[in-house]
């Protein structure tokens, strides 16, 4: 990647990214599933989020004032296939998302583990292929495995969404070293999803060069939801700016002279 700021004074906020042909300036994606609906709008606004995910199964309702109504206009909906246990189920849920008017963006979640909610990478690759063939813009939620990420690229994914830690765990970047590998090796946007519990963790993911960060539980279960939404928005912007600025060196010990190669200089004298 060569996104680092070339000249001093470049405004990081102007740095945009695109997905499914749309430009986004916010790099913070907010989940909606764990909120009281009357707080979703305020959280989206305070976080400055431009993309909000929602579970198709939650949107599958005739309930008045449902989750679809709670998400402010102008925000891009990213429906997810939660509840799918196989690629075929994910496809059916994605089609339902289209019918519900959520467009062609879809976050693929294929999970057949109710305890840790870890994604099934193999089925996720299959679902990505099937959905990409149907014209969806597919964002697969995945366990950060480089080979799988490459398979997802081949399958037609528009981005990859590796987990930082199990969903809802708020444990942060437990998988940081593997996410770092994906960021280095995969040419698609890498969106860190799941497990982010604090703004500082979101910031770290952005400093590493992630394209965007997604959170839900960490904001929805905060004491002051609006303030936490704002904190996440700011942390993501700060992390992005730090990445663009190019982080300074981190040294284990003080760097004195050059005990090994200093002789080269001496020889030249």
């Amino acid at each position, binding site marked *: 990647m060569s996104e680092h700021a070339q000249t001093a004074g470049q405004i990081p906020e102007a740095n945009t990214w695109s997905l499914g042909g749309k430009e986004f300036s916010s790099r913070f994606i907010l989940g909606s*599933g*764990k*909120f*009281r*609906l009357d707080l979703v709008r305020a959280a989206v606004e305070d976080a400055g989020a431009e993309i909000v995910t929602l*579970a*198709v*199964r*939650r949107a*599958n*309702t*005739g*309930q*008045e004032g449902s989750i679809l109504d709670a998400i402010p206009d102008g925000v891009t909906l990213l429906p997810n296939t939660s*509840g*799918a*246990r196989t690629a*075929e*189920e994910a496809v*059916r*849920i994605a089609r*339902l998302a289209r019918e519900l008017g959520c467009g062609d963006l879809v976050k693929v979640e294929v*999970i*057949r*583990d*109710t*305890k840790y*909610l870890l994604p099934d990478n193999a089925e996720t690759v299959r679902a990505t292929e099937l959905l990409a063939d149907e014209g969806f813009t597919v964002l697969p939620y995945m366990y950060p495995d480089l080979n799988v990420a490459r398979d997802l690229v081949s399958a037609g994914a528009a981005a990859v969404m590796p987990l930082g830690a199990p969903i*809802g*765990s*708020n444990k942060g970047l437990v998988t940081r070293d593997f996410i770092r590998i994906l960021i280095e090796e995969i040419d698609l946007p890498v969106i860190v999803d799941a497990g982010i519990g604090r703004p500082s963790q979101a910031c770290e993911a952005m400093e590493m060069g992630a394209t965007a960060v997604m959170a*839900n*539980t960490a904001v*929805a*279960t905060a004491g002051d939801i609006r303030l936490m939404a704002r904190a996440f928005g700011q942390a993501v912007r700060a992390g992005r700016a730090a990445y663009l600025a190019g982080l300074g060196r981190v040294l284990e010990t003080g760097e004195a002279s050059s005990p090994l190669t200093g002789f080269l200089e001496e020889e030249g004298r």
Partner: protein
Amino acid sequence: MADKTEQDEKRMAADAAPGEKDAPGEKDTPMDGVRGEKSAQPVEAARAQGEKSAPAAPADTAAALAAGTITTADLPREAVGKRAYRLAPLSPEALDAAIHTDRALDPLTFLPDMDVLGNGMFDRVLDAAEAYDPDAVTAADVRRVLAEDTVGPADFGVLLAPAAEPFLERMAARAQRERARWFGSNVQFFTPLYIANYCENRCVYCGFNCTSDIRRAQLNEAEIIAELDAIAATGQEEILLLTGEDPVRSSVGYIARACELAAERFRTVGVEVYPANVADYARLRAAGVDYVTVFQETYDPVRYGKLHLRGRKRIMPYRFEAQERALRGGMRGVAFAPLLGLADFRRDALACGLHAWEIQRAYPAAEISFSCPRMRPAKGGVAPHAPQVSERQLMQVICAYRIFMPFAGLTVSSRESARFRDHVAAITATKVSAGVSTGVGEHTHQADEGDDQFEIADTRDLPTMCAAMRRMGLEPVMNDHVLV
């Protein structure tokens, strides 16, 4: 804590050893059916046939079973686990006689037409419950367990012990955190619909039992549609269909048709009906059902035999394996519950949690949920002998379930008061019913409506419940499910 006599009885039941020992003041044999010493003549004849073949004289066997001179435990049967057995083929007359006669079925012997999984789960769960000594748990144990990030099956019992009672506030705080983490503010709504109350079982504590003098009813297709439409018009999107347990009157076909009608009107359909075979569950799944609830009532085999005198329900391991058969039939989720207060509630809650844990371990994709019913008075039912469970103790059980399996759904029954339900929902319950009637045909007040199964304490309708949940800071959710 069970007394020594009862433990002895359990051991006998577990070993299916001959001999019986009546508990003082009770007429029942401790483990009805385990009565080798009393073996009557036809039994010897049957045994002489060897283990594999059917009884020689089915008519005699039927008569003996109906007369209560023998039980199915006296007939040839094969072991399918440490405790459980499978009965050799029996004539239809003999089977029918046994099903409809008090204590003629052996509670630990599968009938010939029942699927048997026999994978050891029943023995493991009952062994653990038997070995559990709630009074041996100390406050130090509770502190240690509450300091852990996760609570495994070996430590679940610590949270259910009397020693954990003083830690209830801490347990509730943790239960609330876990709920927020896994479910956010969401609380899911559903309503039960009783479509029939005929029942072949005789459960001494239940208002629907076959000897109760209650009005019986079974809704026909038009009546089911009227009830479903009336409920759907209130805005509910999840329905739980219930019947009494009469597989002849309420056949799988009848239930499947009701489920199809429900699936046309509701986004989520569950059933709480008699335990069925894998193929039956597959048929219900095809009719649009995704969730199956089966209450085990009690995991204490001695109490189980004493409380369930007649009908297929008397076969304890068949009921125990119902959730697994449902999952094999393609169901997405299964719910578990003992009816707390029928036996030692701490042991029963422990066994229920371990049962669910074993199922989740074997079927990691299964959605697990717990129901938390306590004994309530019922017309035609009698109060059992076990001490009743207080609200505080029920709260402890609920919090223990949540801490042990934080991802599981948790339902609080309308048997509980509005005050209790509201607070438990705010702490950790994820599912509540609203607009509940436990009678048959009551949503439309149809002419031949049947009596109620039990008395409900919380009669609030959907709008009132939604408002109450919002006041507690929760988000009422009508549906969170796609049938795929």
